[in-house]
């Protein structure tokens, strides 16, 4: 059953071809068998998953909701361990929260619960969502199912690896600078980061509040559309969530994309881009042309400033967001503190990993008196300029296309000693976060048996168009259907 997409499983459940209990057991068995090697999940709660599956089966029998009403009823899934789930632990990949049990659930968790989805467990991730390789998890690195000595990407690396290994049809992720799209690209999946404000951030542990956004990782655009439909919407508990109505993402999926204007920024194909990736992305763009899209060369003049701006804004916000982890009220507390300073210093020193500490230091520096104007304020100005670039481009095109990442998945350990090289992985992804724009990554080829991702960035609240374009591409190509070897 694992070869089926989420949409196919949804129809099987509706037709009675399988039950949620069968499907859930199937995935729990796979997790038990395959994840000891991959390490993509930090917790699995088989009992509560089977209970959820039974509830879904009972509901289907008693009230028989149509597939249109509850398409996700009984479909298994995994949450990135950044989403608080009441009654279980939420670690955020950190020693700091190794034993943390939130007394509330994230809005995303509640919404997918209400849609009838069955949570199998929580996915591994880079600590506090900081990382591009999932090597920063306190619970150990995650392997890429395509090549076990390569990274799955990050920070939603566990989510990507587990969906690629078909341990669940879908997993949630969060994306602050590419943390859904980059692992989706590295693992041959489809992943969408919605417009900032489209999905509630309530109960999702913050990394950088003005950039964080939740979204799904699945094998197809259609599956992403189905799950995003249930995740999206205004939430009165998140003041930054939007009350823009949520359109029906499924409605236009099968229409032709004739006349879709795709902008191709020249800056995306310059130095730093792997030749093999460039070739695959160009081929994908040619396929879009065949489908009736029009390609147009455009320019995003401030592209080179994205990474510097991002690595000021994100750490600045993080340095403040992570102040609450102080060993006083919850989370890790050092043993036998002698005084308050000792309590703070050792709790944070021992509770946080190296990358988290690095970003707290960078962010604290950027916000300090005397540096604020030169770094933080300057970064905000650059952020505005980058936004202006996109606004100008979107006057001429409907979506902007390019590679998701400069290279395919790299070897574990290859960049751990070089933070700058690691940060450059986010070269093409951070602009969508800085501008709050929706962006989707889909698999569009392979280089040396590793998947390559194509990214489409859209206008604010234009998720439907991105899903539509990706779905059309997936109707005439089969990259999204390919599976890594050794996951049978």
């Amino acid at each position, binding site marked *: 059953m694992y070869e089926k997409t989420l949409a196919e499983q949804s129809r099987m459940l509706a037709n009675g071809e399988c039950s949620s209990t069968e499907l859930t057991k199937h995935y729990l068995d796979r997790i038990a068998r395959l994840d000891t090697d991959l390490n993509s999940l930090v917790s699995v709660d088989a009992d509560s998953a089977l209970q959820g599956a039974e509830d879904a089966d009972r509901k289907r029998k008693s009230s028989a909701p149509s597939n249109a009403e509850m398409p996700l009823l009984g479909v298994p899934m995994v949450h990135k361990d950044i989403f608080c789930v009441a009654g279980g632990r939420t670690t955020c990949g950190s020693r700091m929260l190794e034993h*943390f049990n939130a007394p509330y659930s994230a809005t995303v968790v509640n919404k997918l619960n209400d849609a009838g989805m069955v949570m199998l467990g929580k996915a591994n991730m880079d600590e506090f969502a900081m990382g591009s390789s999932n090597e920063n998890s306190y619970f150990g690195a995650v392997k890429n199912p395509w090549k076990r000595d390569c990274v799955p990407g990050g920070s939603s690396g566990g989510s990507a690896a587990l969906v690629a290994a078909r341990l669940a049809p879908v997993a949630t992720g969060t994306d602050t600078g590419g943390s859904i799209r980059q692992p989706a690209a590295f693992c041959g999946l489809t992943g969408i980061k919605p417009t900032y404000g489209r999905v509630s951030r309530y109960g999702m*542990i*913050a990394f950088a509040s003005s950039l964080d956004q939740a979204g799904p990782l699945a094998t197809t655009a259609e599956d992403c559309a189905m799950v995003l439909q249930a995740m999206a919407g205004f939430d009165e508990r998140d003041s930054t969530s939007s009350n823009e109505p949520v359109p029906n993402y499924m409605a236009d999926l099968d229409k032709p994309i004739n006349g879709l204007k795709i902008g191709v920024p020249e800056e995306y194909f310059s130095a730093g881009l792997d030749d093999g990736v460039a070739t695959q992305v160009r081929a994908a763009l040619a396929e879009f042309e065949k489908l009736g899209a029009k390609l147009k060369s455009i320019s995003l003049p401030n592209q080179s400033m994205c990474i510097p701006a991002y690595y000021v804004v994100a750490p600045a916000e993080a340095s403040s967001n992570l*102040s*609450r982890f102080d060993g006083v*009220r919850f989370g890790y507390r050092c043993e036998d503190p002698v005084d308050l300073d000792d309590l703070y210093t050792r709790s944070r020193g021992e509770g946080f990993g190296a990358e988290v500490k690095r970003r707290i230091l960078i962010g604290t520096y950027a916000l300090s008196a005397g540096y604020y104007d030169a770094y933080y304020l300057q970064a905000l100005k650059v952020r505005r300029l980058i936004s202006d670039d996109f606004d100008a481009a979107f006057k001429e095109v409907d979506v902007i296309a390019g590679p998701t990442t400069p290279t395919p998945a790299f070897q574990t350990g290859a960049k751990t000693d070089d933070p700058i090289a690691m940060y450059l992985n986010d070269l093409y992804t951070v602009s969508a976060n800085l501008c709050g724009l929706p962006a989707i990554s889909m698999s569009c080829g392979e280089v040396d048996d590793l998947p390559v991702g194509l990214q489409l960035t859209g206008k604010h609240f234009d998720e439907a168009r991105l899903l539509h374009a990706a779905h059309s591409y997936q109707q005439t190509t089969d990259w999204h259907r390919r599976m890594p070897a050794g996951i049978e």
Partner: protein
Amino acid sequence: MSWETVIGLEIHAQLATRSKIFSGASTAFGAEPNTQACAVDLGLPGVLPVVNAGVVNMAVRFGLATDAHITKRSQFARKNYFYPDLPKGYQISQMALPIVGEGAVTVSLPDGTEKKINITRAHLEEDAGKSVHDLFDDCTGVDLNRAGTPLLEIVSEPDMRSAVEAVAYARQIHALVRYIDICDGNMQEGSFRCDANVSVRPSGQTELGTRAEIKNLNSFRFLERAILYEVDRQIDLLESGQSVVQETRLYDSDKDETRSMRSKEEANDYRYFPDPDLPPLVIDNAFIDSVKAEMPELPQLRRARFINDYKLSSTDASALMGDKATAEYFEAVLEGQTFPAKLAANWIIGELSGRLNKENCTIENASVQAPRLGQLLARIDDGTISGKIGKQVFDDMWGTDASADDIIEQKGLKQITDSSAIEAMIDDVIAANPSQVAEYQGGKEKLLSFFVGAVMKASKGKANPGQLNQILRDKLKNA
């Protein structure tokens, strides 16, 4: 050398909302520790602040009351520092764009003059929790019930030149925030606290001296004492050739002195930046107009109206302005009555407030409410009883539901206005006191009050004083 004192105040007024500024937890005072702190107040991971609409309304009310600029697009900012009673490691406040900009109040000083004090800004922020140092032997306890309580921080310009002016300004703001119903003003519970920035400079110098900030003064007396002490301390330093250090100081009321808390060098770098969890707070004209429409009449306008419309003296008007409830009580006494407003003012300032003081009772809880007092004063005004009997009736009304008329009727207190009855009593008194009559007729006119008193006593206080006086004078002359 003569020195000039310069004072600016930062006042923290706790806004009188039922729930906290960014969460639904209760703000009620005095609950068991940590029973009124929800996930948002505790700063648990993943939770987010949502602005309580009530605080926006209250801040705008304050802005309108101080004739201030209201910021149409204000912004919350994070003030970052570590302390155990600050759950998130930052306080949500406002920095670059406060909701209320420049304004002013005119303060009445004890010497009868007035002074305009400019207000720099007033911004919204959340309170921190409370560290409890004396409950455990070897560690400090944290109570987060207070965390997230809404505050309006009102920052004045350094416009005050003495402790007296500072106290007058603080009292005026205190009266104002209660008047417009945004703060209960309870200083014991910490609902209204002052920080004083104090410096001195040689008289005539325009440049400001180095200032010290004295934190958390929770009574007007402490505010005054702390400033007086601090001014003396600074002058002593300067006159002995030393300099004032910019620092934060605490006032110790037991020793009546201020002492250093932390110097400028030890001060935190708060790393303020706009809070990304809260979009800019946008206020439009329609909202401001709606707040304006529900505003109570402001004290200064009401005072002017009392003087003009009711012909009250400035002193009486000010006395009635002490708090809104008193002013409202005064107008309620006059409701439907025709007696002069001055009579009501005298009774409220005199008899009623004396009684309230004695009973330690607020005017809202006064046993004799405004309509009943109005009926009593009407009986005095129409001559049914004298003012003196009125006080007796008032005492009888207190603690009962009886009306003035009932008591006058029951106790037979109705004034004697029958001239022949008064004449008979006067005749008896004159007959019983021949020597005093002779002295009076010999020119000792002060004795008139002796006769008035004697007749009044004979009438059990009920004789009409005017009639009594008139008849008595005539009779004494011709006796």
